[in-house]
Each structure stands twice: as C-alpha cells, then as structure tokens.
C-alpha cells in the first residue's frame, strides 16, 4: 500500500462525495422549504442520465448532453411538483413516501419501456479523457478531477444563490415561515415549483456526470438516493452546509473503508477471512457512521431541532 494509492483513493472519495452532494443538496432544499420527503429524487437522477445519453447519442456533443440533463430533469421536476407534490404538502409523511414510491415505479418501468432493459453508455468527451499527472507522481483520470471541480463550483454557486440573491432570500424565508412570506406578497406556489425544479436539475446533472463513468440504466438512481438520505441525516435536514460536509464524510468513509478495511484485518487474520470480514464491514461503514452521528446529535451535524 503506497502513498500514491492512498491519494488516488482519497480523490475517488472526494469525487464520490461531491456527486452525493449534488443529490443531497436538492433533497435537503426540498425538505427544508416544502417539508416533503421526495423518494422520486433518484428517478430524476436517472432521467438526467438518460436525457444526456440520448442527446449525446444523437448529437455527439457532451456539453449539449449536460445541458439536456439539466433542462429535462428540471422540467420533469416541475411537472412532478405541479401534478403530484402540490397535493401532498399538508399530508403526513407516510402519504408523501407512498406517493413518491409510486412515482419511482412509474418512472422506472416507463423508462424501461421506452429505452429497454439494456444499459446505455455515455462517452467521456475527448478533451477530458485520459489521465493527468498530479504532484507525487499520482496518475489520476482527468474526468474525475473535472467532476470534483464542477461539483465544487456548483456548491459555491448554490451557496451564493441561497445567501446573496433575492430568490435565495425567499427560499430561506420559506424555510422559517411559509405563511409569513405568502402574506408579504411572495407567490409561494411559484417559489415551490422553482425550488423543486432546481433540486431536480441538480439531481439530473449528477446523473449525467456519473453516467459517463458508470453505465446509464434503470434503477441507477435508488442506491444513490439512499446514500443521499444518509448524507442528509448526517448533515442535518435543511442545511446545505451540512449536506456538503455529510457528503464528503460519506464519500470518503465509503471509498477508504472499502480500500483500507480488508488490508487492516489482514494484519491479524488469514487473508480469505480478512477479505470477507473487511468487505462486509466496509459495506456497512457509512451506516455505522450514521448511527454514531445519531447517538451524539440526533438532528444531524448542522440540523436544528
């Protein structure tokens, strides 16, 4: 185990964390402002990836594909908000869970019906393909590095949007008192649709970026959705900052756990059982992290009660 390998895995962890942040930010924003839990967020991730793959297949342009993922996912999000979510704001969480579970079934099977069960592939653009040499002689794929960069830029943009702009002010006001901002003349239903579309666009964008590394297929969204839940729980519901910290923690714990735990157990166990204990423990590591955070801060690291 060398330093180079550790640096490489750490970068992988950060890249994974940045992707989780794009998912978790939308979830936590939607929950913070509207108080709904949206299981269909994973479907929006999938829709973004499929839109990107379809556009890239038709035009060959990766930039157009990314743009398509943003636009299509935002439109899908706005449609979901207008037709379904709107009716669920004053329902209990059980109804929200079940309605969005129904949306998952509809979107997953609908996509399978439209695109078939075989995975699609989205190619990394030529300008970003191949490795790049970093300090200490680390060879790292340029595309993954670009994802980290794009993710951090999006995170900064989101912070600026929330804390510096008029719409961000309205979003924050909506989180603390939605009746009041309605009384002050802000059109809440438009605001809600916008927030939902924004969250959806972020999820779709993440799907398109990851789609180029993995394959684009039905059901790709749900594992990421559940990890994003873990991130939101660790960071605290409604907190963008918490989502960023939680996402990086989960990304690093998962990646480094998979890499380090088997060799750690190899120090005092025979190789085959060290491998199996290490791999099963590392697949549980982020949930153990979540349990630990919950023991000390039941509302998450940055959550308010």
């Amino acid at each position, binding site marked *: 185990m060398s330093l180079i390998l550790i640096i490489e895995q750490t970068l992988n962890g950060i890249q994974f964390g940045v992707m989780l942040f794009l998912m978790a930010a939308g979830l936590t924003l939607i*929950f913070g402002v509207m108080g709904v*839990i949206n299981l269909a967020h994973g479907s929006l991730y999938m829709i973004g990836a499929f839109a990107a793959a379809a556009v890239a297949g038709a035009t060959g342009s990766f930039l157009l594909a990314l743009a398509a993922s943003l636009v299509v996912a935002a439109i899908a999000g706005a449609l979901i908000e207008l037709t*379904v979510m709107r*009716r669920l704001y004053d329902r*209990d*969480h*059980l*109804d929200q*869970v*079940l*309605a969005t*579970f*129904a*949306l*998952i*079934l*509809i979107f*997953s*099977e*609908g996509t*399978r*019906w439209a695109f078939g069960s075989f995975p699609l592939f989205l190619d990394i653009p030529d300008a970003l393909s191949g490795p790049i040499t970093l300090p200490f002689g680390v060879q790292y794929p340029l595309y993954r590095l670009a994802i980290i960069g794009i993710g951090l830029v999006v995170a900064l943009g989101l912070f600026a949007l929330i804390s510096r702009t008029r719409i961000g002010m309205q979003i924050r006001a909506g989180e603390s008192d939605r009746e009041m901002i309605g009384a002050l003349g802000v059109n809440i239903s438009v605001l809600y649709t916008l927030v939902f579309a924004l969250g959806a666009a972020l999820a779709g964008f993440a799907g398109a970026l990851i789609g180029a590394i993995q394959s684009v297929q039905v059901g790709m969204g*749900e594992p990421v959705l*559940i990890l994003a*839940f*873990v991130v*939101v*729980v660790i960071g605290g*519901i409604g907190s963008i900052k918490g989502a960023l910290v939680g996402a990086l923690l989960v990304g690093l714990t998962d990646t480094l756990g998979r890499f380090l735990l088997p060799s750690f157990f190899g120090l005092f166990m025979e190789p085959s059982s060290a491998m*199996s204990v290490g*791999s*099963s423990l*590392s*697949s*549980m590591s982020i*949930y153990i992290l*979540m*349990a630990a955070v*919950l*023991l000390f801060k*039941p*509302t*998450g690291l940055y959550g308010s009660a």
Partner: protein
Amino acid sequence: MQREQLINATTLLALLAVPLWAWYVDEPFTITLATKVAIFALAGVGLNLALGLGGLVSFGHAAFFGIGGYAMGILASHAQTYTPLASWPFLLEGTKSMPVIWLVAMVMSGLAALAVGALSLRTTGVYFIMITLAFGQMFFYFAISWPAYGGEDGLSIYVRNGFPGLNTLDPIQFFMLCYVLLAVVLFFFARLAKSPFGMALNAARQNDERVQTVGITPYRLRLVAFVISGAVTGLAGALFADLNRFVSPTMLSWQTSGEIMVFIILGGVGRLYGPVIGAGLFIMLEHFLGGLSEFWHVYLGVLLLLVVLFARGGLIGLLAGKEVAHD
C-alpha cells in the same frame, strides 16, 4: 364499526375459501398464490402495528423480513449438509423443524428490530423514515458481501422444512399452516390494540406530550411495538423463504420494504385487516396485470398514486366509510 367487521370476516373467509376450492378442483398454483397472500399479509400486519397503531413509518422492515428468511436458510442449509452452525462454546446444529425455525426467526429479527429501533426512535418524522431505510440497506449490503451464505446469489434449500404431523410439501397443508399463523397473529394483535399497551401506543401517536404528562414514556412503548412488529415480519420472512425454498438478498432490498408498505396503504392504514386485503389485491394485480404486460409496475404505480391522492382510507376505507380516524 359493524361494516368493517363484516368486511374483515369476509376477507378472512375468502382467503380460506379460495385455496380450498382450488384444492377441490386441483389447481395447486392458485393455492400457492393464496399462500403468498397469507404470508405477505402477515408481514404487513406486523409492520402495521408499528406504522398504523404506533405511527412509526418504518421504511426498513425488509431487513426483518430478510433476517427471518435467512434464519430459515441458514438453519436448514446446515441441517441438509450435516454441518454444525458452531461447535464452540457448545454444539449448535442446524434444523429442518419449522417451529424451531420460526422461533429463531422471530428472536433474531426481534433482536435486530431492538437494535435498529433503539437508535432510530431517538428521532421522529422524516429522520425516522430515512434512518430506517438506511439501516435496511445496511443489512442488504451485509447479506450481499457476506460470502458464507451465498452472498448475492442467495441460498436454496432442497426440501421444504417439516412440521410435526403434517406433510408441508402438500400445498394445501402448507397454506393452512400459514393461514393459522396469520389468524393467530390477527387475534393477538386485536387483543393488543385494546390492551392498556395498545391504547397508550395509539395515544402516543396522536399526542406525544399528553402521554408523557400522564407519566408514560413513549420511547419505551414504541420500542416494544417496533420489536414485536419486527419479529412478526421476521416470522413472515421465514415462511416466505420456506414457500420458495430459497432466500436471497432481494428479500432485504428497499423495494421489499416499499411493497410491504403498499399492502398496508392499499388496504387501509391503521386497520387491522388492511394488510390482508392489500396483500390480496397486490397478488391479484401482480397475477392479472403481470399477465397483460411486462411493465405492470407502471399500472401498480398509477393505482397506488390514485389511492394515496384520492382514496385515503384504502380499500376498507372505500367500503366501510370513515369510521376509523386516520390522521
């Protein structure tokens, strides 16, 4: 209330009559479908104690369903290969006897529910949903990455486990076993809901603070309810694994948790027989729509969406009117 009781009795009788008729005309597949209904209903009834009565929206009950399934798979696989589970500190053998397997399944899934519940019940609302979902995934990934019992491929059992005095390979006899267990649990839960424990649990769902003021700790009530709920779902898992003679991580997946919840919502939340009707409806939809189209989940999704948005009491609510408050 009268009409709901009538519906309940009809449901229970229909679930008995259909397989008996199928047995008479020699249609074993229909008996298997009815067995599936009884088992899914049992899982749903288990979850409904936490969800309907206790207001605990657990999205991780597949974990307990799967642990019950694996309890059966592990015990039976050791019995069929004649290898002991453990030889230290004392000899622990596998078994093919259903009563023992049921007991182990309930104890193991109850213990898992105790651990998950003790942590998750520190939170409420959306946190609780997300955390139970996450813990459910934890068990799922554990089952996939633990190679000793089949990992991703699952574990098959050659012969169905035995019950003293019965031939469990005969579909109708196995159905009767599942049906009797379901009836026993339904009877027990009906008594439980009317007991001081059930009353207090129900009250804690409606108004947490008031229950605390009269000196009851809701946390403890909810934890007990969660453990009983997990154990019953685990029992259903052991039966389901025995029905298929196969157990795999799919039983632990989050979709399974969602489906168990779907049984409850289709039938009616907080109604004792809701999951029985819901499971029946689900299996019928799966059978008939699945025959019409490969993409029958789309129709299921649309139906579920309509029920959630427009028919909040589920099927029992539609038939019996609004006698039981569902808030």
